[in-house]
């Protein structure tokens, strides 16, 4: 029966989670410097409130939110602001960031509660507290949580879906969150239920994490309607639309959001973070991150201050092996490559992959032989073969008008299966960017 709890198509990449699946989360010693980009979330960048030379304590607001779809930034360590300027950003560009020289002898102990106790708060009070604590989704896109938790009044929400799939190979961030901090997940659920006024909650976990499922079952509060579903292990099971399809059987209409089918999806680590900010009284200043791959000497699951630089993180994990060849933020299927060890981790960084030479061997590319494997892999039923042909010819408008490019979520399944190694999802990403630019230019 459980086999029906999935979606159609998709791929089965090697899971490769064994490096860190059973490694307990440990805390990283504070680095000498943290760098906090003003744009770590979907939406408008935060506006800086500090000046060079200012002393800040851990948890201090250093950049305020700008509008509704935005999120504030807090100091993730006590120290002194040394610079506010351009700095390498995980997206490959340079973006404005606040650099803080960390106080070497600070105990990094927070002052009294910066986030109020949740018990006495109303729904709006909870929402405001989450908003000002800088809570965003920790699954990658870093969408501000308060926006997700305040759907328009004409869209009734029936169900909260906690996404514990973690379908990306290698990563174990959500896995460890669920296995080690299940109470936090349940507290986060309780708070979300209160805000949304929803009584039904489903936690979807891929079946390859039995310890996480057991921990969640064990700590489940008796008074809440929470069910934990073991889902088929398949990529991209953790994509919002695929997860909703697997659990509810509903298809989110093209161009619409989960809330259009009455569902709010929040990733497991993000749910835990909602609880964490209320528990500790500290805004979002740290997160769990998986550092893994055959190119790192000591694969680990770490609690790190947001803004920790890649180089410091690698050093804390025993350094790189001699054959380390490529570094990726996120999972191997959708993650972004990094060339600069000064790049900081942001709130949305789910993992750091250090791939060894043998994990990233280059392969020859061949012409498309129309095998159709990409059509059988695409979870949203696009025709990557035709899209790829059009992309190669630069016919982006046709891709959008006739072949639903807009529904492509760049999951990479087509590129994964392509026997000719055509970089399909890369071409589609480029096509999307080009179309956006053309539209902006036309407007």
């Amino acid at each position, binding site marked *: 029966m459980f086999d029906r709890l999935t979606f159609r198509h998709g791929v089965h990449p*090697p899971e490769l989670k064994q490096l860190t699946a059973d490694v307990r989360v440990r805390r990283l010693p504070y680095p000498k410097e943290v760098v906090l980009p003003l744009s770590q979330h979907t939406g408008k960048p935060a506006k800086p409130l500090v000046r060079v030379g200012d002393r800040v304590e851990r948890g201090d607001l250093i950049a305020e939110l700008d509008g509704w779809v935005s999120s504030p930034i807090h100091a993730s360590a006590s120290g002194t602001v040394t610079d506010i300027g351009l700095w390498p950003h995980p997206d490959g560009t340079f973006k404005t960031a606040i650099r803080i020289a960390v106080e070497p002898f600070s105990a990094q102990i927070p002052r009294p509660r910066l986030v109020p106790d949740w018990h006495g708060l109303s729904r709006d009070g909870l929402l405001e507290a989450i908003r000002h604590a800088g809570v965003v989704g920790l699954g990658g896109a870093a969408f501000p949580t308060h926006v997700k938790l305040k759907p328009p009044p004409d869209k009734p929400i029936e169900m909260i879906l906690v996404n514990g799939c973690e379908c990306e190979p290698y990563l174990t961030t959500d896995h460890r969150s669920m296995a080690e901090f299940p109470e936090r997940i349940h507290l986060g659920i309780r708070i979300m239920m209160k805000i949304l006024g929803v009584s039904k909650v489903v936690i979807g976990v891929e079946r390859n994490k039995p310890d996480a499922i057991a921990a969640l079952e064990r700590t489940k509060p008796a008074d809440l309607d929470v069910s934990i579903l073991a889902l088929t292990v398949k990529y991209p099971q953790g994509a919002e639309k695929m997860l909703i399809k697997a659990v509810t059987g509903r298809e989110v209409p093209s161009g619409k959001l989960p809330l259009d089918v009455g569902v709010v999806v929040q990733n497991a680590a993000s749910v835990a973070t909602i609880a964490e900010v209320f528990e500790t009284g500290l805004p979002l200043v740290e997160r769990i991150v998986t550092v893994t791959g055959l190119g790192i000497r000591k694969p680990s699951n770490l609690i790190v201050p947001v803004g920790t630089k890649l180089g410091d993180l690698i050093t804390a994990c025993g350094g790189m092996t001699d054959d380390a060849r490529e570094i990726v933020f996120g999972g191997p299927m959708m993650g972004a490559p990094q060339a600069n060890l000064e790049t900081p981790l942001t709130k949305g960084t789910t993992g750091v992959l250090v791939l060894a030479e043998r994990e990233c061997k280059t392969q020859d590319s*061949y012409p498309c*032989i129309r*095998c159709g494997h990409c059509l*059988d892999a695409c979870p949203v039923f696009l025709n990557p073969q035709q899209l790829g042909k059009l992309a190669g010819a630069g016919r982006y408008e046709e891709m959008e008008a006739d072949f639903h490019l807009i529904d492509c979520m760049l999951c990479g399944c087509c590129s994964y*299966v392509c*026997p000719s190694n055509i970089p399909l999802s890369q071409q589609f990403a480029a096509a999307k960017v080009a179309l956006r630019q053309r539209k902006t230019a036309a407007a």
Partner: protein
Amino acid sequence: MSDNRFLVTASPHLRSRDSTPAIMWSVVGSLVPIIAFAVYYFGPSALLVILASVVGAVGTEAAFGKRGAPRDGSAAITGLLLGLCLPAGIPLWMAILGGAFGIGFGKLLFGGLGQNIFNPALLGRAFLQAAFPVALTTWPAVKDVPWWSLRGDNFALPLMSAKVDAVTTATPLGLMKFERVATSVGDLAFGTTAGSLGETGAILILLCGGFLALRNYLNWRIPASILLTVAVFVGILHLIDGARYPTPLFMVLSGGLMLGAVYMATDMVTSPVTNRGAWIFGAGIGFLVVLIRLWGGLAEGVMYAILIMNALVPFINRATQPKVFGVPATGGKP
């Protein structure tokens, strides 16, 4: 600050182990038992003819294709498949010419791998059939000849008329069509009949194709659809007039249908990319095969049926675009 020792490539950073050459060489490998059977059954002539068409195909690819193109294995498949649908006694220069035509005009002229519309092996055969109709329909006898004897004048010089002194016979389809003699199903299934090199032995072909289908190197829907269509169409006719029309089993097992359905129609480049399209494509082939075999002037129709449907593949693809996730069935554009 940038460290040049790091690669910067786009995601996904994992790739499946499949590769285009791996697919092509697996197809070549899966043909080995069929070739071995042809050699066992038709003697050294079989090996010579198959080698000659491979030389023609691969040689042309090497001479006029992209540098290193023969390494992807696709030209080898063309050569092998062409060889398997030729009679054992054909002069070798014709086999070489057929392979060269198939690759040169059937593939390279369109732009090489992945660009061609028609199955190159079948195009090569169609050319030979048009140019040398007699040689292409001279079937050596299969019984009462020593294994090592050549089954025809394989070493005839180009454009000289071949010495026809080999014992010849008719194929089961020829017998059925022109002499109204039925061949036993057992002979057809196990390949002990006259015919082209690789079209005898329906069961062996099915097994070899099954291996490819299990590895997802062959879309099983295409042969399934072809065989089903032929069986149902002929079955209905047989029920109407059992004396005039053959049984479905005879139709399915005889001639080049099995080789065509399993190996020719499933050529990835020249068959539809969508699974719904594969069913339609197969049904079209099956329908045309029966039409040509029963009412056409030829005993066999698999080659033309596949070539005609090859031409329709772009239209089939366009008509069978998948229904996109979250788009209502009627609301989406093609």
